[in-house]
């Protein structure tokens, strides 16, 4: 080992000690082992005082978004340090309380495309987890074919006048702001779209929650009627929003694919052992289900290895064309996992509410139903397959 490498290692060790101490001091013991994954899915649950305290502590430190620049409230850490932070959070059975669309999608996009004023104004609150953002992209007639969107933003000089309808606005009913794609030129398709930031409390914004098959309403239909949006909330140039939106969707895909790699949840094989039992050789006592669980867990492992490989290649300047693949495989894993869990639980995995089911069983049913969305939103599996075929494999069409 060279001297320089040695110094690096010492610095990392010191950083690790600092992180560990800080977590010990700030992470409320009551939250140990919990996470807010479910809240992110079903949404709208108010934070407990301890949760609120933890959010504030992490937010002030900037560690919710460890690699974002400190100048805008991020942690300013390097990749190595961020990895240490993640490891130490896991060791302490703590979680990162800063998340949502602001972190996953809007933040990186603003860092790349927004003006200095916009960054100063919008990024710090995201880092502190103070502002909830929602996405205003899809419209009833423009699902997979996003570029057909019709919600109008009329250029009135100082402001835009927005009229139209968005759908699948995630958490629209409890969001503070919305980032939206709107049509600013009706004579062109892709080149007539702009990227706007809209305050959800503006007069003329109305949200109607959509009830899903899982029973929850994490999405809304959002109606804009003569909503005035100040010109300063236009990100990038007028009519140049499509490129920004596409970039944001890339961030979305990369994040959404994470579903397959969530290690916090118990494995399906462990759940199945409990419900199905094992034979005298220690194998799951349902050979057919066992084979399918093995395939699933192998796929999940290959998926995690692939996600790591992609990250590694990207860091080394490789091209990350893999987001569509990861999105599709991630969705498949999430859905397989839910179906297999349900099957292992038998009738206990099919409860809706009330007596006779424990919390995990009821959650399994809801997650199973909710999970059907992951191959639809953020660009459906079919759309990703088109993207792979055309952009990566060069099989032009249409």
């Amino acid at each position, binding site marked *: 080992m060279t001297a320089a490498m040695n110094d690096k290692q010492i610095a990392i060790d010191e950083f690790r000690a600092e992180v560990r101490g800080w977590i010990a001091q700030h992470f409320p013991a009551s939250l140990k082992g919990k996470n807010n994954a479910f809240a992110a899915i079903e949404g709208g649950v108010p934070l407990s005082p301890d949760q609120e305290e933890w959010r504030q502590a992490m937010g002030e430190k900037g560690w919710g978004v460890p690699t974002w620049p400190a100048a805008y409230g991020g942690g300013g850490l390097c990749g190595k340090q961020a990895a240490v932070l993640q490891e130490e959070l896991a060791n302490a059975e703590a979680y990162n309380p800063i998340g949502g669309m602001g972190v996953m999608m809007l933040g990186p996009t603003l860092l790349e495309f927004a003006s200095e004023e916009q960054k100063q104004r919008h990024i710090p609150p995201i880092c502190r987890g103070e502002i909830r953002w929602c996405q205003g992209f899809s419209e009833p007639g423009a699902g997979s074919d996003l570029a057909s969107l019709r919600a109008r933003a009329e250029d009135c000089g100082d402001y835009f006048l927005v009229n139209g309808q968005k*759908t699948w606005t995630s958490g629209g009913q409890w969001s503070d702001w919305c980032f939206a794609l709107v049509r600013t030129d009706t004579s062109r398709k892709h080149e007539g779209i702009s990227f706007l930031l809209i305050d959800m409390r503006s007069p003329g914004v109305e949200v109607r929650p959509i009830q899903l098959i899982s029973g929850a309403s994490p999405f809304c239909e959002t109606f804009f009627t003569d909503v005035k949006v100040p010109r300063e909330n236009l990100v990038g140039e007028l009519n140049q929003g499509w490129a920004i939106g596409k970039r944001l969707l890339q961030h979305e895909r990369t994040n959404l694919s994470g579903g397959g790699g969530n290690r916090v949840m118990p494995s399906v094989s462990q759940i199945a052992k409990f419900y199905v039992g094992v034979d005298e050789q220690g194998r799951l006592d349902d050979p057919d289900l066992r084979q399918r669980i093995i395939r699933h867990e192998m796929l999940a492992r290959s998926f995690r290895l692939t996600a790591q490989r992609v990250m590694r290649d990207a860091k080394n300047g490789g091209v990350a064309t893999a987001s569509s693949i990861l999105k599709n495989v991630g969705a498949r894993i999430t859905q397989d996992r839910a179906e297999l869990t349900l099957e292992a639980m038998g009738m206990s995995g*099919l409860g809706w509410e009330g007596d006779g089911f424990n919390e995990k069983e009821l959650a399994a049913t809801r997650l199973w139903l909710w999970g*059907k969305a992951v191959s*639809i939103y953020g660009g459906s599996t079919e759309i990703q397959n088109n993207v792979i075929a055309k952009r990566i494999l060069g099989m032009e069409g249409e």
Partner: protein
Amino acid sequence: MAVLTEEQVMLREMASSWAVEQSPVTAFRRLRDSTEGLQRGFSKDHYRQMAEMGWAGILVPEEYGGSSFGYLGLGLVLEQVAQTLTASPLMLTAGVGVSALMLGGNTHQREQWLPAIVAGEVIVALAVDEGSRHHPERIECQASVCEGGWSLSGRKAFVLEGGIADVLLVAARTEQGVEVFWVPAVTEGVIRHDRHMADSRNCAEIELRQVVLPEEARLAELPGEQLLQRLLDCARAGAAAEMLGMATQAFAVTLDYLKTREQFDEIIARFQALQHRMANLYGEIELMRSAVEAALSAIESDDDDASLLVSLAKATACDTLNLMTREMVQLHGGIGMTDEHDAGFYLKRARVLEAAWGNASFHRDRFARLCDY
């Protein structure tokens, strides 16, 4: 397997019209959203109409007021009414309940109960499993001989239609092995706990606390194990027939949607990737139909390979409907995820029927064992 008779064709058409006109999916939605629905999981009014049309007595010999249409006839009706998700205890009552009396009951029991079943006044459920998964070989519920008859003790989990049944067919272990008992739900010691399932249909856990029954409660005309297998096969084939109706309808609804939905300035039915998926599903459903019809016919004519064909039908039905309901949601895109759309109903009901009386995994294993490998 015979070609449908003219009478069977009429029966099917009658069932189809009734389902479309009297019991569309909106009726099930109303039921689910109503207080009655939450409690009962079926519409009394619909079941009365079904009985009036003779369906409750479809397996019952004419001497007891039935129409003696046989299992294939019952299957036709079940398939049709399941297309629109009609919530009714028809399969368990007219199929399993009647079979229990015809196969295991004595003349007195038949005379006492069959006319009431035909009239739609008695609902029957099948209480076999004691855990969340199907294990008919793991029955621990005890039936011991007591003065003047039997005393039953134990628990039965997830009894479909168990909360609304007037009679429970209870599998219990005696010193001689497993036997099937005819247990009126009003008998002292029978305690029912509602289970609210994802499909919003009726389901209950049944507690049996020293339930005292007369000697003849044991259905004695057939050895217990054999009777239990026959009744389970009736339930499985009946469930498969319902699943066939659901798959057919889920396919039809999806196909219609693809033919109207536009994306990228084109009707999406024109996208070849979707065409090939639909072509594949179409083939799968045709295979499923063959398996289901063969199972129903085999039960009807009491064939040697009835159990084999029932396992083939149930396993095929589970896999095909599972695939079809997943594709139904996926091909509908976002709208299929909303409660407002019917896709979720098919999805939820499908999984309950999949889990009932042996899932695909159970029946694949059984099929192979029956084929000796």
